[in-house]
């Protein structure tokens, strides 16, 4: 393409784009021109989701290991994380604002709170469903409690733990669309607000791109955890095939 051709192409695109935008249609040209406005919200969204799930996993994993050793911890933990899970996300973001201020931090605190129930439940279920015979055999072979946990129980609980991570990640991606209430940015801001400069809620092309990106992000994360799940549990595939 020569320089003149490129210029002509841009002009045509601009003209058709404007007409389409004015009619509020679905405008591939507008999307092609404006797609770079979505990259940084997308990155923010990824950052919010990944950080929250990572912190949530660290907390839930610690709690689950404690609950594995001291059974009485399970009930209270489920009750508290369950109550946190029930509070609507919009309300949670707003309730946190006066305490933690606007910004990423507030959004992450709320998102972490939502991952706890899912992750804790899945990790404890996974540990509890490890066949008793496997643990007994390991103990008979002289493994210490720590070795049993690391070499027997955690690997066997891996499918449930990763299933929990899948659910937690997709849920968090969805909830992070509301993080803009806490000033956390993300794709929700593009989707909802006209201030983001992409037309907001009433502009079809914007809704398709911003909404589509969140769905894609959730599905992509799901796929990654599914792949890890398959790689981490080779014995399952052996049984299946």
């Amino acid at each position, binding site marked *: 393409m020569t320089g003149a051709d490129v210029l002509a192409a841009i002009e045509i695109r601009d003209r058709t784009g404007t007409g389409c935008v004015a009619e509020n249609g679905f405008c591939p040209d507008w999307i092609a021109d404006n797609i770079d406005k979505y990259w940084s919200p997308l990155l923010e969204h990824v950052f919010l989701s990944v950080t929250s799930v990572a912190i949530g996993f660290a907390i839930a994993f610690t709690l689950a290991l404690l609950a594995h050793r001291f059974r009485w911890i399970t*009930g209270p933990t489920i009750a508290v994380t369950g109550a946190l899970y029930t509070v*609507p*996300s919009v309300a949670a973001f707003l*309730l946190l604002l006066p305490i933690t201020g606007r910004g990423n931090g507030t959004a992450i605190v709320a998102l972490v709170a939502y991952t706890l129930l899912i992750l804790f439940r899945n990790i*404890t279920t996974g540990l509890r469903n490890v066949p*008793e015979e496997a643990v007994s055999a390991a103990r008979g072979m002289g493994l210490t409690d720590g070795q049993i946990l690391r070499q027997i129980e955690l690997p066997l609980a891996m499918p449930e733990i990763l299933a929990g991570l899948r659910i937690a990640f997709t*849920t968090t991606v*969805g909830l992070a669309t509301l993080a803009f209430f806490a000033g956390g940015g993300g794709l929700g801001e593009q989707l909802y607000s006209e201030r983001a400069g992409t037309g907001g809620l009433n*502009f079809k092309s914007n*809704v398709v791109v911003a909404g589509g990106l969140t769905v894609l992000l959730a599905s992509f994360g799901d796929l990654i955890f599914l792949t890890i799940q398959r790689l981490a549990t080779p014995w399952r595939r052996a049984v299946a095939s």
Partner: protein
Amino acid sequence: MAAGGGVVSAIVAQAGGTPGLGCKPAPDDLGTFRDAVDFIFSQRESVSGGACIGGFEELGDLAVSHMSVSIVALLGALVIALPIGLALGHIGRGEFLAVSVSNVGRAVPALALLAFFVAFVGLGFVNIAIVLGLLAIPPILTNTYVGVRQADPDTVAAARGVGLTEGQIVRKIELPLALPIIFAGIRLSAVAVVATATIAPLGNVQSLGNPILEPQNYGGAGQLGAAIVVALITLATDAALGGVQRAVTPRPLRAPLWRPRIRRTPLAVPPRTEIS
């Protein structure tokens, strides 16, 4: 709370307000949370001026609208998801459908779904009820399916043996046995719907989200006050349906809902010191 409210009105009365409006300007010397609580219990002049906002009455109206759209959505979801779940569970097929519906449902954020509807389908009560209903379907469908599949096969076989028709088996055996799990799904859906109805104002339906989405009128106190009310209503919905769920659970099955089922009995292996 009542005593605090009295002090608040005294302060407001001193400050005075726009004549003829019927409410006082927002108090400006309360802490953030006390200001929000004051917004819930007493009217005040809006931030932009010229209108009365807040107070029990307005929030009550908003709550009624909030709950009506939620209930319509939930009933719609029940009418669709329950028969499909029962049928699929009964014939034992469609596990893929039941599972993927819930996976897809999770991957589509509520705000994105609402935005699609607002941009492509339209605004209004019916559209918003459909959006909320779509969010409510996956948990009900999946739980109904799982609940029916978990009904004791011996019981079902016995029912068939004494001559019940397939329809009777579904209605009289499988549905009652699956009821606790179905209600767990309804509870999840109801909480999600009530929580999500907060963003219904984006589709032109009044809800408790109005003060949250219009800070230019309601101010920070309105946002926070409405957030508190939304949180309380959601927790109340959860608790109420939790009670129903427990009520429909046959007594012998109740305990495991509260105490985790302990599969592993204590090991009958002597301490390791004795082995070595």
